[in-house]
C-alpha cells in the first residue's frame, strides 16, 4: 500500500484536524501576529537588532502553520508536500541570489560630464 493509495481514500474521511483544532490554530496565528506588531513598538528590539530576526522567525512560523494545517500539507499526500516545498525552496534560492547580485552594485556616476 503506497502513500498514494492512502490519500486516495475519500476526502474528508482521513485524519483532518477537527474544527476545534482549526479555531485553536487561528488563535495561535492571531497571537503571533499580535506579537509581531507589538515587538515592532519596542525600542529595545530595534536597537539591539533583534527585531528583524524575530520577525523572520515569527512569520516563518505563521507561514508553516497555515500551509501545514489549513492547507493540510501535514496530512495530505506527500506528493503535494514535495511539489510545494521544492517550488518554495527553489524560489527562495533564486530570490536570495537575485537580491545578493543586485543589491551589490556601485552607483558612482564618475566625476563630471555624466549627463552631457
Amino acid at each position, binding site marked *: 500500500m503506497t502513500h498514494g493509495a492512502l490519500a486516495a481514500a475519500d476526502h474528508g474521511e482521513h485524519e483532518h484536524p477537527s474544527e476545534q483544532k482549526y479555531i485553536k490554530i487561528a488563535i495561535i496565528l492571531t497571537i503571533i501576529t499580535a506579537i*509581531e506588531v507589538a515587538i515592532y513598538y519596542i525600542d529595545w528590539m530595534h536597537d539591539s537588532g533583534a527585531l528583524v530576526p524575530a520577525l523572520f522567525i515569527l512569520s516563518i512560523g505563521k507561514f508553516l502553520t497555515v500551509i501545514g494545517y489549513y492547507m493540510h500539507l501535514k496530512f495530505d499526500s506527500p*506528493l503535494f508536500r514535495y511539489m510545494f516545498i521544492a*517550488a518554495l525552496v527553489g524560489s527562495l534560492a533564486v530570490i536570495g541570489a*537575485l537580491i545578493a547580485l543586485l543589491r551589490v552594485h*556601485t552607483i558612482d556616476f564618475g566625476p563630471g560630464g555624466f549627463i552631457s
Partner: protein
Amino acid sequence: MAQAVATLETAHGGGESHIGGADHSGHPPTSTGLDSRKIAMWAFLASDCMFFGSLIAMYMIYRGEAERLYQAGQGIGPLPHEILDIPYTSISAFVLLMSSLTMVLALASIQKGNVRGLRIWLGATALLGAVFLGGQFFEFTEFKHEGLGLTTNIFGSSFFTLTGFHGAHVTIGVIWLMSLLIMSLRGGVRKDQALNVEIAGLYWHFVDIVWIVIFTLVYLIPYDEISTITHEAEGALRQIGLG
C-alpha cells in the same frame, strides 16, 4: 529523489479493470489516486511561488532605494516610514488571517455534508476578503492623497505593484468564493463535491500566506534598519569579492 518518485507510483492494485473509463462517480481512476484538479492547483501554487518570488525579489532589491535617492537629493515623494500605517495594516492582516479560518471551516462543513455551514462560512470568507480589499483600496487612495502614486518614486512603484498583484489575487479569490456560494445556493455543491471547495480553499490560503510574507517584508521590517542591514551585508559581500 527516489522517494519523490515513489510517491508518484501508481496506486492500482491490478485487480480492477478500467475498461470503459468512468466509474460511477464520474471520475476516472487516476494513477496516484489523487484528484487531477488538486494536483493542478498545487502545481499552480508552486508556479505562483515563483511569480510572487520574482515580485518580492524586485521589492527587496529596491527597498531603501527611495531613501538613498532622497539622501542624495534626487528623491521625491513620501518615503515608506512616513506613510506606512502599521496598526491599520495589522487589522487588515488579521482580517485575512481570519478568512483562512472561515475558509477551512467551510471545507470542514461540506466534508460532513453540512450545506448550511458551507454557505455561512463561504459567505464569511468572501466577506472578510472583501473587507481586506476595501481596506487596501482605502489605503491606496489615502497614499495617493498623501502624494504617493505608482510613478512617484521607486518605493511607490514597487509597493503598489507588489501589494496590487496580491490584491488582484484576493479579488479573483473573492469572485471564486462568491461563485461557489451561488452554486451552493442553487443546490450545486454537495458532499461529494467537497473537492471544489478544497481547491478554492488552497488558493485562498496561498493568498493568505503571501500576505504573511508581504506584511513582514513590506510593513514590519523597519526601513532604516533594513538599510543598515543591507549595508553590512554589502560590506560582507564586497569582502568576499561579490561587490
